[in-house]
């Protein structure tokens, strides 16, 4: 009997000894999977929100601004990228952007999405499946080239646009995304870049590359037939209005989603994004009201987009009051870009892709160097674990110069890359539609359809 009791107590002791660490491990596992579930839910939602920015958001915004005869052609230029870029991304794009590679471009380790599955990639986002990270980043690769289409609206051949866009993501977007966000990229502030540049959600990667490429396209392709002679006013402000509102909402996925988790940083980026959009709307309207005597609806919605653009690089680094300032500044500056500056130089950036994304992106990227603070984002730490100063407001004046280098790299890559790609497309296909097709409109000449059919 005593023997049996002794045996039992030994067994119980052994059981207890095993249970404590097991319980801790089980608890840790449960906590981890709870966080993963929360983060993954937010990141999948964000991915869908960012896709919604392209279609219907941008498609409606741009579609309303063109003439009736080009509404479908313009919407298609956004929509087709949801298909085209997705395939390029699946085959090689993700790897070229996020494979470790060299300082300029990723390697081919994730070719055909090899090894991209449920397991997280701790370099980028430790709490969500790499597949979520991959599909989230894809949505950025879709909207960025779609933004360019505002510059060559109403005059680019559809086939040439397809070739242009494939080459553009390969030559401009994937390298730029790698340099700023990819492991080992030249400008990556968090994963060993030589020039630490802060770009939370794509001021350089998305807006400068697309906006500056848009300017190159507008200059290379020339003005639309009848520019400043025929009336070319927006055919439906209503469509543009709905599109801009969808962009504003979708942008929460773009910026707050760039926290890559359902974290306090995501909340901060969400707030900064919203505040900047609000201030920019007021900034643009105020400037316009003073200059032309009327606050226009197009001014209001253009202002909100300008603010969203400018806050994009800063959203995960700045406090709410600087966000208001960045937004307001972007509203005023972009208004002057699309009115005074554009008419002075006379380029036909048809839907102001450069005036809003190029100028707003540049302004935002530079101001990020001023207002970035470790009170918002403490991801950068010194050897002792104390958060490092980020921007000028933290006492790190050199960051403004780093931001300027990032801006310069994006501008140069966009100019050179886009020019080379346009030359190739022009030689192979011809970038511009025939004058007759341009008169007829892209809807009929490119797609054989009409946006509004009065016979039906």
């Amino acid at each position, binding site marked *: 009997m005593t023997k049996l009791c002794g045996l039992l107590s030994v067994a119980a002791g052994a059981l207890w000894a095993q249970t404590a660490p097991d319980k801790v491990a089980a608890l840790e596992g449960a906590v981890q999977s709870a966080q993963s579930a929360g983060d993954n839910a937010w990141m999948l939602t964000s991915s869908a929100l960012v896709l919604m920015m392209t279609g219907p958001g941008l498609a409606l915004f741009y579609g309303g601004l063109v003439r009736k005869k080009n509404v479908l052609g313009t919407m298609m230029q956004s929509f087709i990228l949801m298909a085209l870029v997705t395939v390029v991304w699946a085959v090689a794009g993700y790897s070229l952007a996020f494979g470790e590679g060299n300082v300029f471009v990723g390697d081919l380790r994730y070719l055909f999405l090899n090894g991209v599955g449920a397991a997280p990639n701790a370099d980028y986002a430790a709490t969500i499946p790499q597949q979520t990270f991959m599909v989230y980043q894809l949505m950025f690769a879709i909207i960025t080239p779609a933004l360019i289409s505002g510059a060559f609206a109403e005059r680019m051949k559809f086939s040439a646009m397809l070739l242009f866009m494939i080459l553009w993501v390969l030559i401009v977007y994937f390298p730029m995304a790698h340099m700023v966000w990819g492991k080992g990229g030249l400008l990556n502030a968090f994963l060993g870049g030589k020039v630490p540049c802060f770009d939370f959600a794509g001021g350089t990667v998305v807006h400068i590359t697309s906006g500056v490429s848009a300017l190159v396209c507008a200059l290379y392709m020339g003005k639309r037939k009848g520019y400043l002679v025929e*009336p*070319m*006013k*927006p055919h439906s402000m209503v469509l543009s209005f709905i599109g801009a509102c969808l962009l504003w909402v979708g942008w929460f996925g773009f910026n707050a989603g760039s926290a890559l988790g359902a974290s306090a940083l995501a909340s901060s980026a969400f707030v900064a994004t919203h505040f900047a959009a609000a201030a920019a709307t007021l900034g643009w309207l105020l400037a316009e009201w003073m200059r*032309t005597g*009327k606050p*226009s609806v*197009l*001014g209001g919605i*253009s202002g909100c987009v300008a603010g969203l653009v400018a806050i994009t690089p800063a959203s995960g680094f700045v406090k709410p009051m600087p966000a208001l300032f960045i937004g307001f500044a972007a509203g005023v500056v972009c208004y002057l870009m*699309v*009115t*005074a500056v*554009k*008419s002075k130089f006379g380029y036909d950036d048809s839907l*102001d892709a450069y005036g809003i994304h190029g100028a707003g992106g540049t302004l935002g990227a530079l101001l990020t160097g001023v207002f970035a603070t470790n009170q918002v984002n403490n991801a950068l730490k010194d050897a002792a674990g104390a958060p490092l100063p980020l921007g000028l407001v933290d006492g790190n004046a050199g960051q403004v110069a780093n931001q300027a280098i990032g801006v310069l790299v994006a501008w140069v890559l966009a100019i050179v890359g886009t020019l080379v790609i346009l030359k190739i497309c022009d030689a192979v296909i011809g970038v511009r539609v025939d004058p007759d097709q341009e008169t007829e409109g892209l809807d009929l000449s490119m797609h054989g359809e009409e946006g509004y059919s009065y016979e039906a």
Partner: protein
Amino acid sequence: MKKIEAIIQPFKLEEVKEALKGIGIDGMTISEVRGHGRQKGHKEVYRGQEYVVDMLPKVKLEMVVPAARADEVIKTLVSSARTGKIGDGKIFIYDVAQAVRIRNDDRGEAAL
């Protein structure tokens, strides 16, 4: 028979239709048209780009009535479509040679 063609402000259409119905005229054809007489257009500004819009939206009513009723119809049109401001529109009156009801080949005023 007289054909009466009235070009009026779009927002006056309902009032004019009711007034015509009041004197027993309920057959008419209307179309949305654009144009202007002495009324000047307006200026629109889109991102700093100015456009002068001088073809303004109007509604055109067409009806054919017995000659004896023409004056009464015109009076009703004028009083119901008038606001007193430039842009109220115009009325044109034509002689009609013949009218045919397609359904049963009625001719003349019987076809109206």
